[in-house]
């Protein structure tokens, strides 16, 4: 980080400070190199049972902030998509329960929890046991996500079908739904696209080309001025008569107070 502004590094050249700085950075005394034994035994103990906790440097505040913002954005998009998916499935009258919300909230939870675990590095490093902040559930392959999962699976399978993707939670769910990893292909063949089962039109329109008549120019009649009829006066129907039910107090105050103030004010 280069910054022209001054700080300690430019002040350390001051000759008046030299004795202090020299003393602060003096070669170590024997006392300061004492006490290695306890650390060495700790080192040997740690090598026998290596701790699984990753001890990284604390990420910069900027990175944390960026992560949080990114997480919030992803969450927003995911919720938006979930909402859109709900509309699609409801309008196309698919019997499936839309699980998009579940998967969307799972997606949005992941960045937040990773941020939390990042800041809790202290605890992890201290106790030596990492604390997972939630497990991925993945999309429900038996529900609305089936078609998308099948599409993704076909794409991965076409590329050789190996690697991390096949071990993902989503494909594990898909394999479960299909009744086994080897049955995914045949199971996916029975899954229809969400839009196909509804009354949405499939296929392309039969007639191509431009519309025969295109409206050109300005409209012949343009509404101008104010509306001719403006509601005036009072509403024609008014509630008539008295309310049928009169409010009655449920609890009546005692007629006389039980205690009277005595004495002078």
């Amino acid at each position, binding site marked *: 980080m280069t910054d022209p502004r001054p700080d300690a590094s430019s002040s350390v050249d001051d000759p008046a400070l030299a004795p202090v700085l020299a003393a602060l950075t003096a070669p170590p005394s024997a006392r300061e190199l004492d006490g290695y034994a306890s650390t060495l035994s700790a080192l040997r103990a740690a090598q026998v049972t290596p*701790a699984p906790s990753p001890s990284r440097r604390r990420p910069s505040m900027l990175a944390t902030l960026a992560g949080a913002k990114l997480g919030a954005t992803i969450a927003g998009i995911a919720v938006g998509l979930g909402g859109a998916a709900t509309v699609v499935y409801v309008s196309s009258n698919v019997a499936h329960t839309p699980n998009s919300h579940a998967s969307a909230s799972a997606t949005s939870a992941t960045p937040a929890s990773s941020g939390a675990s990042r800041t809790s590095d202290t605890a992890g490093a201290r106790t030596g046991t990492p604390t997972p902040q939630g497990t991925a559930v993945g999309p429900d392959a038996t529900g609305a996500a089936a078609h998308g999962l099948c599409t993704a699976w076909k794409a991965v399978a076409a590329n050789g079908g190996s690697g991390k993707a096949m071990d993902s939670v989503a494909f594990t769910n898909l394999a479960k739904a299909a009744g086994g990893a080897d049955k995914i292909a045949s199971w996916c063949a029975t899954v229809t696209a969400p839009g196909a089962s509804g009354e949405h039109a499939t296929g392309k329109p039969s007639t191509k080309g431009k519309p025969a008549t295109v409206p050109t120019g300005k409209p012949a009649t343009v509404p101008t001025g104010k509306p001719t009829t403006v509601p005036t006066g009072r509403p024609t129907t008014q509630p008539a008569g008295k309310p049928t039910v009169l409010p009655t107090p449920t609890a009546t105050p005692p007629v006389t107070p039980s205690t009277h103030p005595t004495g002078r004010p």
Partner: protein
Amino acid sequence: MIGAEFESVLAGAQSGDEAAFARLWRDLNPPLLRYLSLGGDAADEVAAETWLTVVRGLATFRGDEMAWRAWVFTTARRRAVDAGRKRTRSSRLSWRSSWVEPVVADCDDEVVDALSTEEAITLVRRLPPLQAEVVLLRVVAELSVSEVAELVGRSPGGVRVAAHRGLQALKKMVDPKGVTPEGPGTLRGVT
């Protein structure tokens, strides 16, 4: 600082070479103790706890020497804050915003020609806590401004200001008359 060999020394320490780890320890324990002495007498204790944490995370540490130093000092600071809290709780003192315990000057003419390290640290402890900590992290731990800023949770600008003020105040302590060979304008250029 270990320098160019750091990478191989760290790799050796991570693969169980005790001599390599000893080199890391000898390089950092003295500045660690000097930094931790800001918190009072428990510096040795806190340093030992710091190394305990460091050896646990040693195998998974990745980074260069600056990252290594920053990590060790970050760990030290956390242990010091914990120790400070414990001490505060046990002595029923009021809550303090810093684990650094400044000391009050007992006499003005304690400055001698050749300062010992302990005396210099005593001078630093007279500074306000943030200034004292920033000065030691910059001068003794040799961390960069951005690393110190991250460590103490301040902006880099705030760290620069604290370092500058701390050094200015230190200068006044060692040279109360304000006479420097170059005249009073020497530090003017860095403000």
